[in-house]
């Protein structure tokens, strides 16, 4: 009994053991639940070696992954970087699953293990469980079973159809992975009773608002009227369709069932990671905010001694370090830094708002509930909307953010800086830069001529003259032609004028084996 009553202290450079880990976890959990009000999946903490960490890296962070050469490539690259000392390994990897799996490295000191537990096992874990995007698009309790199935299925395909065949399909599917996600909830299938009711409503509405004048208007959607069969075909195929992998899986004429299943697996993996891409700032900000609070509380309670605190601060400050734009170390905005700063800022606004904060954030300024406010933000926002909503003038001034306009021709022009006139512009530009819808090409399948040459027609909507990278687009199109089995064409169409700026064509490829 004496062991448990004795004060448990984490000090600098202390080696960890399993019972320490457990006690640290329990103390952290007390703070996380009691003070911060976090709601997490149960944790499964797995201690691994650096070798295993490299393994985990290579399979894009999932503990189970099917086999493909690209993961071997990633491993070879990470290993070379690590062994030559160019990069160090992460302290942890956390997986959005239920139970939430947290990999921690055996090399970490006890202080680092506590930091990692607070950061991943509570910060990230809470975010995974509560953020709306994750709730909507990922199935945390099903992912491991699904990957288990996927791995076995693809291994079976390799046995049956040969590794080369499977690799060919996987290569092509990976090339289209970015186009394998649903960005919006899918429309449900038509329900007869529902349709009948809507039709009746429409009629009633027309009768109520009848005006003969409408008849004299020229028809706006002329082309659809003139080619009803075209419109019908597009409707039947569910076009336009932005999820190219989904379309190929369902509608590609030549694929074999196992090939469709592989497309489906890759599509599911892509969808699983889609929320993570949109919430880097929030996810890391949330985890960093949580670990910062918890480690400080542990220090106040005397669990973390001064040496340990210094060790923690050293690591924390290097994580949230944001180099200036003219610093050679600058490589864009550090999501940890921005997320952490914003969340600290929100906490400040709720507790000690200035006049300016009251004007900008009347709903939250001075409400005295920093954690509740943050918990709400963690649920309802993604990076883009979070910045648009919560980036405060105070933080813009602190980070000295400025927005530069680049028209690709003349000089760059500073459009807004951290002053009264610039806050909104800077905030909007920063929010835009985290909006992946604006940074990923907007590509849709618009038509396919099933009666004729079966050519698949895709369209990329070009906004503000930003076109696709030519080299990669050509290669991806070859992969697409392989999966479709016939010719494919991709038109880059200017969004405003509707003019075709450039076209890529590929195929017809050699017949599918």
């Amino acid at each position, binding site marked *: 009994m004496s062991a448990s009553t004795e004060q448990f202290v984490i000090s600098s450079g202390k080696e960890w053991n399993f019972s320490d880990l457990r006690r640290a976890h329990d103390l952290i959990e007390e703070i996380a639940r009691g003070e911060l009000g976090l709601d997490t999946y149960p944790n499964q903490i797995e201690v691994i070696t650096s070798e295993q960490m490299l393994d985990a890296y290579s399979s894009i962070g999932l503990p189970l992954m099917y086999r493909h050469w690209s993961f071997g490539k990633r491993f070879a690259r990470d290993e070379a970087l690590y062994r030559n000392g160019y990069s160090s390994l992460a302290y942890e990897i956390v997986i959005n699953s239920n139970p939430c799996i947290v990999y921690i490295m055996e090399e970490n000191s006890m202080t680092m293990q506590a930091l990692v537990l607070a950061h991943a096992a509570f910060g990230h874990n809470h975010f995974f469980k509560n953020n709306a995007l994750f709730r909507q698009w990922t199935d945390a309790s099903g992912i491991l079973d699904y990957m288990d199935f996927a791995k076995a299925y693809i291994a079976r395909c390799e046995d049956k159809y040969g590794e080369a065949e499977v690799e060919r399909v996987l290569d092509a599917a990976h090339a289209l992975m970015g186009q394998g996600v649903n960005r919006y909830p899918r429309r449900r299938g038509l329900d007869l009773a529902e349709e009948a009711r809507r039709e009746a409503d429409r009629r009633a509405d027309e009768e109520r608002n009848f005006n003969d004048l409408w008849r004299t208007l020229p028809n706006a959607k002329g082309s659809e009227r003139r080619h009803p069969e075209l419109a019908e075909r597009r409707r039947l195929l569910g076009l336009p369709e932005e999820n190219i992998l989904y379309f190929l899986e369902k509608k590609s004429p030549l694929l074999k069932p196992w090939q469709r299943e592989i497309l489906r697996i890759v599509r599911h993996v892509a969808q699983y990671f889609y929320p993570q891409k949109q919430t880097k700032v929030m996810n890391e900000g949330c985890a960093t905010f949580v670990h910062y609070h918890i480690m400080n509380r542990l220090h106040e309670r005397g669990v973390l001694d001064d040496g340990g605190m210094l060790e923690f601060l050293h690591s924390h400050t290097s994580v949230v370090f944001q180099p200036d734009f003219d610093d050679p170390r600058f490589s864009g905005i550090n999501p940890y830094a921005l997320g952490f700063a914003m969340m600290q800022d929100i906490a400040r606004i709720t507790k000690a708002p200035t006049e300016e904060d009251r004007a900008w954030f009347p709903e939250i300024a001075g409400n005295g509930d920093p954690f509740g406010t943050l918990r709400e933000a963690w649920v309802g926002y993604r990076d883009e909307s979070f910045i648009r909503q919560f980036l405060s003038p105070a933080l813009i001034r602190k980070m000295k953010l400025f927005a530069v306009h680049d028209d690709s021709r003349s000089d760059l*022009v500073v459009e807004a800086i951290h002053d009264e006139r610039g806050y909104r512009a800077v905030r909007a530009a920063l929010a835009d830069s985290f909006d992946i819808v604006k940074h990923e090409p907007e590509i849709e399948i618009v038509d396919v001529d099933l009666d004729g040459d079966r050519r698949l027609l895709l369209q990329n909507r070009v906004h503000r003259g930003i076109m696709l990278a030519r080299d990669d687009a050509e290669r991806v199109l070859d992969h697409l032609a392989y999966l479709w089995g016939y010719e494919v064409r991709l038109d880059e169409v200017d969004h405003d004028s509707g003019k075709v700026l450039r076209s890529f064509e590929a195929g017809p490829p050699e017949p599918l084996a």
Partner: protein
Amino acid sequence: MNIIDRRLNPKGKSLANRQRFLRRARKQILDAVREASARDGITGPADNRIRIRADTLREPHLHHGAEGGERWHVAPGNKEYIEGDRIPRPPQGEGRGRGGSPDGESEDAFQFVLSRDEFIDLFLEDLELPDLLRKELREAEGVTPRRAGFQTSGAAANLNVVRTMRNSLSRRIALRRPRPEDIAAREAEFSRLSEEEAADPATLAEIAGEIEHARRRARRIPFIDPIDVRYNRFEDVPRPAASAVMFCLMDVSGSMTAHMKDLAKRFYKLLYLFLSRRYKRVEIVFIRHTHIAREVDEETFFSSTESGGTVVSTALEEMVRVLRARYPREQWNVYAAQASDGDNMPADNAHAVALLEQSILPLCQYFAYLEVGPEDERYGGSTELWRAYQRIAQTGMPIAMRKVNHRSQIYPVFRQLFSRDKAVRSEGVV
């Protein structure tokens, strides 16, 4: 919360991916490996770092190009800019923030480390010991136990539990040994019935009889019977002789330039690598000669020069002496590589040939003669020594000969000598 220690899990989870990756980039890796071997020192590939072009390893995806269009950037750390300032466009390719590929990997080259085994495997791919010689590897050096089925007697340590339990189970089923659960169920029924008032004594007696019978049967038919027990059986398999000795013979007379020695050295290195891949233990004997021959260490072999005439047979005699003294035929596989510029005292050729034919080649698995020439040699007529050796080669003795002038020829020549394809192997030996 659950803490799991995964540190002892099997390593190499990504091995299958690595193999796929190596296969994918095989051609480029092969080229890189060969290039590395031309560049490297003699003692083997010390640094297995490989750089390959990332072309076939590219993973394309649809994304916006880095150039053109209208963009906005937001950056931290403004020092002096005010709204409306114009910043001269940075030189091409320095697009702020969004240049380069997203995972930060450069497009043109990809660098990684091959393990030594992977390196040598690729390096020596498709090479093998000539068929003729493999037969001679049969001589046993010792024996290795190997699993070979089961047996009914043996040491307790070799008990095969799975097989034993399987036999036990099938015997119990075949003899209808009552299962303990069944007996327990009957007993429970018995005690339930006996508590009931209206129990029929005849039925009770019957059940009691059944239980007694089952008990007796279970006692008579043991759970595990000696006839169930199986042990793993091992067989002794002779282990082939796994030692080789490699003789490096080199002419160090004045006519051998540093360049020629370098060529020879490279060839020896390849041969050593190759042999150490096939044999557990490889010893090397260095014999250098002018008009007298001496066994020396590696350092002396390659570095110091000596003056004197050239008498090849002295080296061969030395080799025979060493062979007889230290490497009995039945325990060692003997390989020899001789490097020379072809200069020999004319009177000695006949003696050298006779030595080779009668004493050395019968003991050797393989004898390679490498004639090294200057780099800028335009026309190389065949030397006396070459012609003399050629006559032996035509008789079908295990001797191979090649002429090499340039460093880049070493690897192809080596591959030719040990190619899996016989036609390639005999090419060039006239």
